[in-house]
């Protein structure tokens, strides 16, 4: 049996209470008439053929209560799981294997962030009412369940759903901040610089200048008087070697969004497109809903457990987000007075620390108590108990996400905004995680904004570990909202973003930094949008599914030119021909993308093999920098393979990697016994959140694309929600699809039903309007009424 903890077999196999009860004949099993305590007036919920609930309520309390009820109906276990992820409570249900994960989550302070956000929101009667109503809805649903009704994952892991809380309703912020704004390489950079010096560091990890297709078009003026920047102190960094760093957000998390205005559009209406590229999971991270009350009419997707639409549209505006890589985390080295860790050095004085005991409950094992020390910078994540390897390194985490957040309020404002001014009022509340927020409206306008909380840094501040005792190394002021990166309409007729560097460095007065930016998808999207005219929604769908491999287009001609083609054997010739006849599109049925992937991966590995011998945490240069170094033949000695006595040149290495790639392909073919078309080789998967529940996964999904391609479907990551919205004032035309299903139940006939259409680039019409759905569009309808 694949699970470590074997579920009680009698309960699991009982036809009354076990898994049999999760086998569903019809897509929806809710009663047609449901009485709910605390409901004020009656509510109608119409599920369309995608199982998207269209909730029609007469007041907001009823609206959000019903949203909580139906979301729990489809995704209760996933909600419970996410709440455990954020609160560091997974070990309670999956056992000791999740202990290190829970410890990290608690050290990162995700629980504290959620509690702080909750307390802040509950002070405001408007938001408190929404959060309480949603929570009530979830709890009413849970209370209606008998053991046999529990989602299958509860049965397999042998635990019961616990009461939902208003705190859990606020968990999405910490979940998303941890997924999106925690990317940094301060420790890896510090290690590398200490070992190899500043010059080599700057060659291998250069900062972009933002001149190549930035998010904010280059001609955008910034005509304000900037807040004075802090002076760069003489010494503000420390030299450490840290062997292992904490697990980071996945670098493949990324997204595209673009909008065209009335001049580019065939119909004269603005069109907006967005797709967040995240880990592909079952159940999907997104849940679609349409919420209507006299106060609101909004449709889109949200994270289950959250009473707001995160990406979507109403009858006047639409919006979408892509992650904006910005350094939101800095590490401060802390010196304690003694082993008791009760005092730490700051500004030549000793200050008191705060000590927090985190008790982690573990299934089938004793509880674990982790001691976390806090200083004024934030929690000390690396210390003698966690990843410091007895080197006495204590690193405190300063993360913007730890500060008070009002992002929830921003999103509620987006949900209700009628025009750009109201939208900008919402943006004011957006405190992070930093996003490129695209906007379009029914008047034909488009806009791009990067709101959020950004410290004003002197150049280089926070690239490396900072001295925690030095006040000059700290953040002092923040970029004012009015000085944010913003573009409202543009003569080119479109705006777009794809996680690239946000702005031309020479025009924006503030220092912008992150250790990693996209360099390919952004250029492809811009190249295409510049040439496209008379655009219809279908054209933007095609662009979202564009498979052009920009990396290959830039580097493959050079690689092929370096090959010694006279000595190729039969297999190598075939491999070579497939590449030479390729037009650089990663279509699923082609073989050349497989050849290129193998060759370039092996080349990258061989090139940076020096990094594999290092015993401390370090990052390899990214694919863009690597390509540039290869093309300019400036690999500064790294082309030498360590395992051979010869000194290889770049050309030698390219030829060597080619030979190995052909051998690897032959090996793959003999093991897998099928042809090496790109979809077969890549084998995109949508996996269940519990990795051992393998039969709930979808394997070998036939889809093109890859990382750094607009259709960003790699093996485990990809477009997690594709949305295209045409802002027709007579009625919004919206289209969407995601790799999953509204229902999270593997025993439901519609489980995962959108995966194949998603892979084929198909979209569903999202039914939207103030009035109720047309009879033909309704799959199932329920009435909720106040309990007598």
């Amino acid at each position: 049996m694949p699970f470590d903890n074997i579920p009680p077999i009698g309960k699991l196999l009982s036809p009354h209470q076990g898994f049999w009860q999760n086998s569903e004949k019809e897509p929806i099993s809710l009663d047609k008439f449901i009485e709910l305590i605390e409901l004020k007036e009656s509510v109608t919920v119409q599920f369309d053929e995608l199982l998207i609930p269209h909730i029609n309520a007469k007041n907001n309390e009823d609206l959000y209560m019903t949203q909580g009820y139906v979301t729990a109906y489809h995704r209760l276990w996933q909600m419970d799981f996410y709440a455990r992820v954020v609160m560091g409570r997974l070990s309670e249900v999956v056992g000791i294997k999740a202990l290190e994960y829970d410890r990290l989550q608690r050290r990162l302070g995700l629980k504290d962030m959620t509690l702080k956000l909750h307390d802040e929101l509950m002070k405001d009667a408007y938001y408190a009412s929404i959060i309480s109503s949603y929570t009530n809805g979830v709890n009413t649903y849970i209370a209606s369940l008998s053991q046999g009704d529990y989602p299958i994952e509860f049965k397999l892991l042998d635990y019961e759903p616990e009461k939902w809380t208003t705190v859990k309703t606020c968990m999405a912020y910490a979940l998303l901040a941890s997924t999106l704004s925690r990317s940094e390489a301060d420790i890896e950079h510090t290690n590398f610089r200490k070992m190899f010096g500043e010059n080599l560091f700057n060659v291998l990890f250069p900062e972009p200048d933002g001149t190549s297709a930035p998010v904010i078009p280059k001609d955008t003026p910034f005509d304000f008087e900037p807040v004075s920047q802090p002076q760069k102190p003489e010494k503000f960094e420390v030299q450490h070697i840290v062997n292992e760093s904490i697990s980071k957000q996945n670098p493949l998390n990324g997204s595209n969004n673009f909008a065209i205005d009335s001049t580019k559009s065939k119909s004269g209406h603005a069109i907006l497109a967005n797709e967040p590229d995240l880990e592909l999971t079952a159940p999907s991270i997104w849940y679609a809903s349409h919420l209507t009350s006299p106060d609101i009419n909004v449709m889109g997707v949200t994270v289950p457990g959250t009473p707001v639409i995160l990406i979507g549209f109403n009858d006047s505006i639409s919006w979408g987000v892509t992650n904006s890589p910005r350094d939101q985390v800095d590490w401060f080295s802390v010196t304690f007075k003694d082993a008791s860790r009760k005092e730490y050095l700051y500004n030549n004085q000793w200050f008191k620390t705060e000590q927090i005991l985190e008790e982690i409950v573990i299934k089938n094992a004793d509880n674990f108590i982790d001691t976390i020390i806090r200083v004024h910078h934030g929690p000390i994540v690396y210390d003698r108990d966690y990843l410091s390897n007895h080197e006495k390194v204590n690193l405190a985490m300063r993360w913007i996400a730890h500060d008070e957040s009002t992002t929830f309020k921003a999103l509620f404002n987006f949900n209700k905004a009628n025009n750009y001014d109201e939208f900008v009022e919402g943006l004011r509340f957006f405190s992070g995680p930093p996003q490129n927020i695209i906007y379009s409206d029914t008047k034909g306008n488009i806009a791009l904004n990067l709101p959020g909380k950004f410290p004003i840094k002197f150049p280089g501040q926070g690239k490396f570990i900072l001295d925690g005792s030095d006040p000059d190394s700290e953040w002092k002021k923040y970029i004012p909202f009015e000085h944010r990166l913003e573009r409202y309409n543009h003569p080119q007729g479109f705006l777009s973003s794809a996680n690239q560097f946000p702005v031309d460095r020479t025009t924006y007065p503030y220092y912008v930094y992150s250790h990693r930016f996209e360099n390919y998808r952004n250029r492809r999207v811009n190249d295409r949008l510049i040439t496209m005219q008379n655009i219809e929604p279908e054209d933007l769908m095609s662009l979202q599914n564009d498979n052009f491999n920009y990396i290959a287009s830039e580097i493959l001609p050079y690689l092929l030119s370096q090959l010694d083609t006279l000595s190729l054997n039969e297999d190598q010739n075939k491999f070579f021909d497939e590449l030479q006849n390729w037009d650089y599109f990663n279509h699923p049925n082609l073989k050349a993308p497989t050849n290129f992937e193998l060759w370039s991966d092996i080349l990258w590995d061989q090139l940076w093999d020096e990094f594999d011998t290092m015993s401390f945490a370090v990052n390899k240069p990214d694919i863009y920098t690597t390509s540039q170094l290869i093309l300019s033949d400036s690999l500064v000695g790294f082309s030498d393979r360590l395992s051979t006595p010869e000194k290889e040149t770049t050309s030698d290495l390219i030829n060597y990697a080619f030979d190995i790639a052909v051998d690897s392909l032959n090996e793959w073919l003999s093991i897998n016994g099928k042809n090496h078309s790109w979809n077969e080789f890549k084998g995109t998967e949508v996996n269940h959140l519990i990795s051992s529940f393998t039969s709930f996964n979808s394997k070998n999904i036939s889809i093109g694309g890859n990382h750094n391609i607009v259709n960003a479907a790699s093996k485990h990551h990809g477009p997690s929600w594709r949305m295209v919205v045409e802002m027709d004032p007579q009625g919004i035309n919206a289209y969407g699809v995601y790799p999953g299903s509204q229902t999270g139940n593997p025993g439901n006939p519609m489980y995962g039903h959108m995966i194949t259409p998603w892979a084929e680039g198909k979209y569903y019409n999202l039914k939207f309007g103030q009035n109720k759905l047309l009879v033909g569009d309704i799959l199932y309808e329920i009435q909720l009424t106040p309990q007598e």
Partner: protein
Amino acid sequence: MKFIIKIFLMGILSYLLPFYFSWWSIALGAGLISLLIRGSNFNSFNGGVIAGGLVWFYLSFTIDNATNSILSEKIALLMNLTDSIWLIYASTLIGALVTGLGSLTGSLLRSILSPKKMSRNEYVSYS
């Protein structure tokens, strides 16, 4: 006839009780029937096995049939079983054994608690 009635009653309870109580209430139901209605230990066990097995077979089979094995196939894979039919057999076996053992327990309890039976045996032996 009493054997058939016992099977019938135990079947009814095995079907109904788990809707309101835990799944193992089938053992209590069968035990109660065997406590109230006399029978040999052997027959009580067999009656329970037949009643519980039939009910759990019927329920799991009809669910599986109605849903085209939509979930049982996935659960079977998780348990490294080649065919989802094994889950129906396994459910049947568990229903049968638990009900049978419950029934046997009821029957044994009856012999402990029943003084009449003792005295009649004594009477027979003295006559």
